[in-house]
């Protein structure tokens, strides 16, 4: 047995160094050996077999880690022992299954010991799967094959967290599960692994719960955005508020655009001058509404924002540090001049002003 253990170890070492498909093939042979060991009478071998498998189990895990194409859920060896479910290890890259399926493997009916059960089960399953993947095997595996068949799809969950939940749950409940399965022997092979305690167990409800939580999170965000929504409870009313808010915002924009259209006369002026006058006007008075001041940030902030702004919109004029009253007046003159010069439509406010000025003069 120990010589066998030695050979298996060396072989697994070889496979680790090789990697890739070679590793898969080597692992096949490795599992063949295990299978021969399995087929031997069980009880006597149980203790020694587990001892034998104590190491190879971890190495199996490592083995199948090394070809990176294989996707495993349990990362470390201790989990292998604790975990009562069994893995399906796809051997070839072409046959990789993205979702892991869990099922409790009812042993060959020989081993009652849990600890011995798990590594044996994992190795058995790995062997079963690998053989199933590549070549057909004699009837010894035939009993194991249907045990890990596809109808376990019901337990399959695409989301990882759900799988983890099942891992936690399975430790509690798999004891009873294995006992039941052992009683049934070769009849009912697998028992579904349950989710967390006190929660619905279907993959459907799990998925729905995750979805609902996502939606609730988004609704909370929206509630914070929309003023006055924090007090309201209930999705429908909150949605009402959201709809009202969006409608009011859109109406505001429409109203503002109308106002802008009337206020804004047909002017063709220098952008630089206008921006300077913009900045100048803020320096002016404290009477400005707070909404206007956001426009004047390039003046207030002396940091990278300003430089970027300058680069984009020719803000050399902003470099003038002090804005006195006279300078403001001067800057106001330039748009005013342009207003006077472009005396276009009768409807424009500029022409009205221009007319007033002319009248004054």
């Amino acid at each position, binding site marked *: 047995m120990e010589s066998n253990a030695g050979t298996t170890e060396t072989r697994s070492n070889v496979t680790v160094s090789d990697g890739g498909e070679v590793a898969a093939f080597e692992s096949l042979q490795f599992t063949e050996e295990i299978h021969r060991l399995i087929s031997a009478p069980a009880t006597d071998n149980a203790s020694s077999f587990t001892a034998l498998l104590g190491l190879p189990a971890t190495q199996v895990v490592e083995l199948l880690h090394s070809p990176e194409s294989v996707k495993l859920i349990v990362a470390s060896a201790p989990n292998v022992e604790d975990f009562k479910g069994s893995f399906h290890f796809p051997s070839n890259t072409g046959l990789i299954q993205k979702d892991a399926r869990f099922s409790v493997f009812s042993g060959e009916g020989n081993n009652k010991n849990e600890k011995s059960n798990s590594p044996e089960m994992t190795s058995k399953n790995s062997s079963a799967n690998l053989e199933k993947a590549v070549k057909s095997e004699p009837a010894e595996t035939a009993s194991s094959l249907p045990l890990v068949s596809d109808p376990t799809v019901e337990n399959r969950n695409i989301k990882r967290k759900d799988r983890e939940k099942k891992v936690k749950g399975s430790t509690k409940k798999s004891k009873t599960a294995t006992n039941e399965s052992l009683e049934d022997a070769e009849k009912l092979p697998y028992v579904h692994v349950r989710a967390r305690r006190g929660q619905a167990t279907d993959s459907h409800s799990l998925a729905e719960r995750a979805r609902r939580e996502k939606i609730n999170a988004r609704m909370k965000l929206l509630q914070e955005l929309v003023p006055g929504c924090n007090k309201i409870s209930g999705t429908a009313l909150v949605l009402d508020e959201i*709809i009202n808010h969006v409608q009011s915002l859109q109406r505001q924009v429409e109203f503002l*655009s109308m106002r802008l259209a009337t206020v804004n006369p047909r002017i063709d002026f220098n952008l630089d001058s206008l921006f300077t006058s*913009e900045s100048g006007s803020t320096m002016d008075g404290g009477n400005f509404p707070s909404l206007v001041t*956001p*426009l004047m940030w390039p003046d207030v902030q002396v940091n990278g924002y300003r430089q970027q702004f300058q680069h984009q919109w020719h803000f050399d004029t902003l470099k003038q540090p002090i804005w006195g009253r006279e300078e403001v*007046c001067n800057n106001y003159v330039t748009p005013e001049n342009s207003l006077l010069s472009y005396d276009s439509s009768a409807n424009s406010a500029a022409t009205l002003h221009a007319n007033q000025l002319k009248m004054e003069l």
Partner: protein
Amino acid sequence: MPNLEPSPVFKRRKTEGDPVSVHRIQSNQTMKRWTTKREHQIYSSKLFQALCRSRRTSSSTSAKELHQTADRVLAITAKGTTRWSRAILAAPLTAGTNMKKHKRAKVTVHTRLRKPVVNREKRKLPVVERKLKALRRLVPGCRKLSCNNLLEETSDYIVALEMQVRAMTAITEFLSRGEAQAPTDRLGSIGNM
């Protein structure tokens, strides 16, 4: 013009890897960018430029045209990260101000009111569904979006709209103020002659 927008954005995403630029990207992708002063500056100056340009090209200053311009500039400032912005840019003639007549809800819906609905949490009730439908109509480009994504788009849309309102108010204020003040100054200076 809008066709040029997406490709430079994607190129930028691929090449930028330094921490500073990563931060900029991250701050550019979240909802909170609409609350920053920088975005406000960018938007208001872009809007201003667009207004001047449209002034020069067309003589009429219709509110609708201005509204569309403002919406498009807002969508451009979004840099193609959200669905509603892409929808506004892709179909400027229809998105946002769609005047299509919508079919009325069928009468069969009212039968629900007679029977009290027992299970509340099984699925999104038709009540909530109808509200979601209304929301889909409001947010541009979200007609066939799932509930989840719709809520996300709505939140970004709301913040963007708020910024748009702030910027437009500031511009109108400035312009009206500028016109109101400048002539008076001029008047004052002229009157003193």
